């Protein structure tokens, strides 16, 4: 059965004149949305879907990993936002939450795990150790921040951050996915 539509595509040679009273004429996107028809690009649709169901890699390094587990447990319950599917294999994950101190011995493993994840992928640096090395920054065996190893999208400060902070970090990542035109968001601390 042919789908009846009142959208007419423009003829070659420029846009036809639109008449608001003539329903058979070409409509703008806003007018279409008012009639319940949504136009979008596939890329946008996929980003919208991914943003609501990110699959993090179950990968704990240090203290922050415990708060990461807490975030998935009953009180904070990250599944309210659709992020509870922690995958044990990097092949099935979207987001790598670097939860803890990266040491020189661990650096190759973190790098390998990142490269094993399929594109598109994102990284959240959780806690001061993953941001900058934190209290261990001047140690002989500590890498000063996850961004020395992998590209980081969202930084969540704290030592360790509260579970709410990690949820906020995930929501920031969602905002980044839905609005890729926003380059950088820096929060003011008051």
């Amino acid at each position, binding site marked *: 059965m042919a789908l009846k539509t009142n959208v007419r595509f423009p003829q070659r040679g420029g846009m036809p004149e639109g008449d608001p009273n003539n329903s058979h004429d070409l409509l703008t996107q806003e007018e279409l949305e008012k009639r319940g028809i949504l136009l979008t690009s596939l890329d946008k649709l996929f980003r919208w879907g991914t943003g609501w169901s990110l699959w993090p890699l*179950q*990968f*704990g*390094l*240090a*203290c922050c*990993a*415990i*708060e990461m*587990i*807490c975030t998935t*447990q*009953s*009180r904070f319950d990250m599944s309210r936002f659709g992020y509870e599917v922690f995958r*044990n294999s*990097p092949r099935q994950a979207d987001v790598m939450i670097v939860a*803890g*101190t990266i*040491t020189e*011995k*661990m650096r190759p*493993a973190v790098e390998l*795990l990142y490269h094993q994840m399929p594109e598109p992928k994102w990284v959240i640096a959780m806690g001061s150790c993953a941001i900058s090395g934190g*209290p*261990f920054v*001047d*140690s*002989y*065996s*500590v890498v000063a921040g996850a961004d020395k190893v992998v590209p980081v999208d969202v930084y969540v400060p704290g*030592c*360790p951050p*509260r579970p709410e902070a990690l949820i906020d970090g995930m929501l920031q990542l969602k905002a980044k996915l839905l609005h890729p035109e926003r380059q950088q968001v820096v929060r003011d601390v008051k």
Partner: protein
Amino acid sequence: MQNLNVNSERYTLNMGPQHPSTHGVLRIVADFDGETCVSADPQIGYLHRGMEKLLESRTYVQGMPYTDRLDYLAGVNNNLPYALAVEKLLGVEIPERASLLRMLSCEIMRLASYMVGIGIYIMDLGAVSAVFYPYQQREYALEVMSALCGARMTQGYIRFGGVQADWNEQCDAALQKLLDEFPPFLEMYHKLVDENEIFLHRTKGVGVVTAEQAKAYGLTGANLRASGVSYDLRRDAPYCLYDRFKFKVPVQQAGDCHARYVQRMEECEVIYQLIKDIYAALKETEGGEIMGKVPKVLRVPAGEAYAQTENPKGIMGCMVASDGKTNPLRVHFRRPSFDNIAIYSELMPGHKMADLVTIIASFDIVLGEIDA
């Protein structure tokens, strides 16, 4: 039925450092013959942050937050041996109320740590729902700590000479919540796990540690007591004011993975009773001092001191050497998990592949402490 004598292949299996049931970044390189483990070699150091070296370049007070990050499941318990060792050198008198607050916070965090230990243990055996209930109780315990000092996990609550903050009304309410919720939880959890056939099959007779082995390998804490050795520092070499309180020290004889679970569950009851007793004693010291007389700039007299406490994972010791400056000459920690995992390479051979996970989980290790 032929081919019963199938030749199995020998191969090496690498487990970790990224593995969901190695409790962090422990790596185990094991040789298998078919599905039976032939040799196992725990590899550590993936979280080695050089903590002892860092403490040498910090002042004593700056060093305190680092101890929280050793056994991060029970931060306060790690502060205590460091504080006790330095206080031995300083010769400070600790007020009674401060000691009671230290003990109370330690017992609350011990309960929280046991909840994680038990929950993750059962989860590693495949029962994912069994992890949610203990974590709920842990939240109640952390609520008390955040009302007391403002931090959930790495509290740094203990100061040299006393504690950071006094007990307040918010803590009363939070502790009452924990005390109300815990007994029904324990009863429910016994019903949920104890009689489970899969759980019993996977834990009974697996990873048996005899009392001699346990002593030879320097096991401490619940792992030692599950092998039939009744030794608890809180009773046998009391620190703080533990000698004032009477409490039972549970002991299991079997020494297998199941015994270690039963041991932790029984100890939970003891901890619960201790929290109640200490809380009652704390109420009698209302308005007391919480800090002893400690100078603003801490110059610790030259000398060496060692203090040890009973931590959730075992005996935690701290040795401090001072040469009279504002920063320590050398600090060394005896980390219980580090000594507890030494037995793995003897315990694991002869077991099936899945039993390795059971053995790792039953010891309740924490990698921050192993690697320091």
